[in-house]
């Protein structure tokens, strides 16, 4: 069924808007470099995209590659919102940078477009296209402050590992194609059931390789080794975008993948992934215990969070699908918030961001507003009630309990208990007195105000989702019920 021309344009509007934004920004950079105008234009692009996603529509297939259903629109809106926040955080950071500034926004828009394509992907080709667009733009963003040794190193590390992951992913799809002769998700799922034993072995190997490739992107153990170095080296706002959007959208895409190619069709893979989830929770939490660098703590905690996020994929069911979307939304808010707080204290000058634990000593007495955002964000990461983090954790546990996955539930509980230690350490250090540093500091400027607005929006979202989660929950339920 081919959709009419109008409905196709209407459905594809978010992607078209993003693409148009990219072209405009590029032209503007070529003609007149104006940091503020470009930042404003980027924000406008994201806001329009966000707005377009809110218009209710029926689900439309654009070719066999892309499908724009409610899930996709939900995820695109999430990317756009994260994009707005990232621009607000980036503005002050990039303003202080003494190289070219404007390309950062171009890269951000491209990365966001890649993530949005990922949200609509229902075919191996569009999956790879989206993932590569996202990754290639991210290399540039990570290594943007390339005069810093760490930043450059992080960029190259991400480039190499990401290329390896893409190669694995491609090989996996090649094997699956060899066995099934299909590349579209649904078609692969149905084809898997009628394979002979030999073909099935090939297909299973391919599926395993696909998960390996995506495991890199999600930084699941044992494919997590790049995470801490890259998060530490990248500029703080970029780390936030990388941690939230790049991971979250791979998870949304996986939601589509497992609804076509169910994990129950491949019991071996299911078992292996259960082990991976438990390992990710263990390694992430135990690794974070040993870090003294805030960005590295957040990196390890994000490994643990992907471990939690994998649980609903493993158990399956409607609550589990809700859990994934709720988790991704809440996780995006709290990750952006944490890295946002790091951003507001950091700048591109000097060898690294303000990411040492000592930089945070006595922060509450020096910059109470930053701590008032950062501390709740960390409590949310730890999963305390009245924050979005609790909602996310509760959904994961509910999904696990519903399917009697007691071991996974226990792993989540044990991981959260360990996690408390390093989150609390990070929080309490902000309240401890710092010798000679108890005076109030405060810089009120345009740049600190934009980042401040971002943090304000995030804390409102965090507490709003925590205290009154009903709008999000009913939204998620509606989105998933509309899916065929």
């Amino acid at each position, binding site marked *: 069924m081919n959709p009419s021309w109008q409905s196709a344009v209407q459905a594809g509007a978010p992607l078209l808007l993003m693409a148009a934004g990219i072209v405009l920004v590029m032209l503007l950079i070529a003609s007149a470099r104006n940091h503020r105008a470009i930042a404003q234009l980027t924000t406008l692009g994201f806001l329009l995209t966000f707005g377009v996603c809110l218009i209710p529509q029926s689900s439309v297939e654009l070719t066999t590659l892309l499908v724009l259903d409610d899930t996709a629109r939900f995820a695109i809106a999430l990317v756009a919102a994260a994009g707005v926040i990232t621009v607000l955080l980036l503005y002050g950071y990039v303003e202080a940078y003494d190289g070219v500034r404007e390309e950062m926004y171009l890269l951000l828009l491209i990365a966001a477009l890649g993530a949005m394509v990922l949200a609509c992907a229902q075919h191996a080709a569009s999956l790879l296209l989206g993932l590569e667009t996202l990754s290639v733009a991210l290399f540039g963003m990570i290594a943007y402050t390339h005069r810093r040794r760490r930043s450059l190193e992080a960029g190259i590390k991400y480039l190499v590992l990401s290329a390896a992951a893409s190669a694995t992913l491609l090989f996996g799809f090649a094997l699956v194609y060899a066995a099934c002769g299909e590349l579209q998700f649904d078609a692969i799922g149905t084809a898997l059931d009628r394979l002979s034993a030999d073909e099935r072995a090939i297909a299973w190997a391919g599926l395993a390789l696909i998960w390996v490739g995506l495991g890199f992107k999600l930084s699941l153990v044992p494919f997590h080794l790049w995470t801490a170095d890259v998060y530490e080296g990248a500029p703080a706002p970029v780390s936030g975008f990388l941690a939230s959007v790049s991971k979250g959208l791979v998870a949304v895409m996986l939601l589509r993948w497992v609804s076509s190619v169910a994990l129950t069709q491949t019991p071996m893979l299911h078992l292996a992934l259960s082990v991976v989830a438990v390992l990710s929770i263990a390694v992430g939490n135990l690794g974070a215990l040993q870090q003294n660098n805030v960005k590295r703590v957040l990196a390890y905690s994000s490994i643990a969070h992907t471990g939690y996020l994998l649980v609903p994929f493993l158990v399956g069911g409607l609550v589990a699908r809700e859990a994934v979307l709720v988790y991704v939304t809440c996780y995006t808010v709290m990750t952006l918030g944490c890295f946002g707080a790091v951003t507001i204290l950091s700048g591109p000058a000097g060898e690294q961001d303000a990411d040492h634990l000592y930089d945070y000593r006595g922060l509450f007495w020096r910059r109470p507003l930053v701590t008032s955002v950062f501390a709740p964000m960390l409590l949310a990461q730890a999963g305390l009630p*009245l924050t979005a983090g609790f909602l996310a954790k509760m959904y994961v*546990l*509910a999904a696990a309990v519903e399917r009697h996955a007691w071991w996974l*539930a226990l792993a989540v509980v044990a991981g959260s208990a360990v996690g*408390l*230690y390093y989150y609390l350490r990070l929080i*309490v250090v902000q*309240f401890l007195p710092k010798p000679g540093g108890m005076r109030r500091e405060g810089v009120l400027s345009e740049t600190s105000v934009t980042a401040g607005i971002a943090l304000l929006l995030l804390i409102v979202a965090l507490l709003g989702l925590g205290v009154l989660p009903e709008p999000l*929950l*009913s939204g998620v339920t509606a989105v998933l019920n509309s899916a065929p």
Partner: protein
Amino acid sequence: MGLSPLLLPALVLIPFVGGLLAWYSERLSLTWPRWIGLLSMAATCAIALWIWGHAEVPGIVPDSRAPQWILEYKLSWIPRWGVSFHFGIDGLGLLMVLLTGVLGVLSVACSWREIQQYVGFFHLNLLWNLAGVMGVFMALDLFLFFVLWEVMLVPMYFLIALWGHSSTAGAKRGHSRVYAATKFFIFTQSAGLLMLVAMLALVWLHQQATGQWSFNYHDLLYTPLTHAQEYALMLAFFIAFAVKLPVVPLHPWLPDAHSQAPTAGSVDLAGILLKTGAYGLLRFVLPLFPHASREFAPIAIGLGVFGILYGAKLALVQTDIKRLVAYTSVSHMGFVLLGIYAGSTIALEGALLLMLAHGLATGGLFILCGELYERLHTRELGQMGGLARRAPHYATAVMFFALASLGLPGLGNFVGEFLVLVGSFPVRPWATMLAALGLILAAVYSLYIVQKVLHGPPADARPVEDLTARERLMIGAIIVSLLVLGLFPQPVLDLARGPLTQIGAWYAHGVPLP
């Protein structure tokens, strides 16, 4: 005249808003936060007394199907999961709320001179903690209960971590106040998460049986459970509450947290937070899982009796006065556990009375320890002595609370312990006999405190300031309340008899289906 159900959320909101105001008012003056704290807690006391005064206490209804509340307040919150803001109060809850209010006032009052740093933020944490506790004693929705359960943790963590003391003994072993606070938090939170899993499992089982998501206490009471399910869920709930109570193998956080916390924090912990564990057992574990609880009772009673003797034994060898008092709490809470799992109405009443009396007496002892620390700057028993002559009023107060703690007839603790023992003896004679030995040990450690602190040669010749007017007022109020509890316990027992009889009946025969 009818009571407005809005009084219940008000009990939580007053300290909550009071905390915010106190924090903000710090910039006006340092005494403002103290007065705001005092007034908001006094207001909660007044509300609790008002409810008591106007309540039509339901008569004794052992075979009534549904629990009876004096007041109930319900507002939908997350319909997707059947979660609501559901508060209800009965005699049991009301007494605990009143205890929280009274000890809240005392906590604010005893910090008047001790806390000089970050005064506003201190009162924010103190009041939010109290707000959480108030909510815990009234929540009838398991989700809400869990939320409030956690809400009371975070401020307590800050109270210990930011305003606590680092004891000399602790510092040698590298144990700072942050260490104590983190230990407290991790113990309680991980047990809490276990309870969350159990809650979700219970709710899910209820949904399987009825097709309806609900976290409501009234609905979940009647969830059909198989034997294994009931036992597993009961165990998870029990562990969460046992950490708080604390039951002996789960107690290691307690001596550290109590001794390192500031005075208000210790009062709060010993007086109120420990009671949330006992309250949880009474309100949730026994009614929700009666059969499994009955099966588990020998183990729970064994742990309780062991705790009585173990806590008392360890109290005897402490050199830090706050650690000593902390271990006596472990011992006294063993009696509460014994009373709860003995399950007869008399034993339950004894447990409740002991909770109230212990809250007041131990709160008083911790306040006196705090006063002592302000004067001598030490908590080592070896560096005290001779206070009977140097500060006679202070010495009298210490003597009184030591006697209360050892269970002198005429004071609340005696009534509580006596009722627990009387109520338990017909059910578990051997355990009761062993537990009674704890009373002898209690006499030993109480007199040990008196001996070490009040008598003997003074460590130095410095004069010691006697109790000030504010301190006399605080101590006097507690002394009067303990005497009232000890001499006229009947009104308290009458108020709680209905719910306790019902809990006892459910525990004995299971919850009858509606």
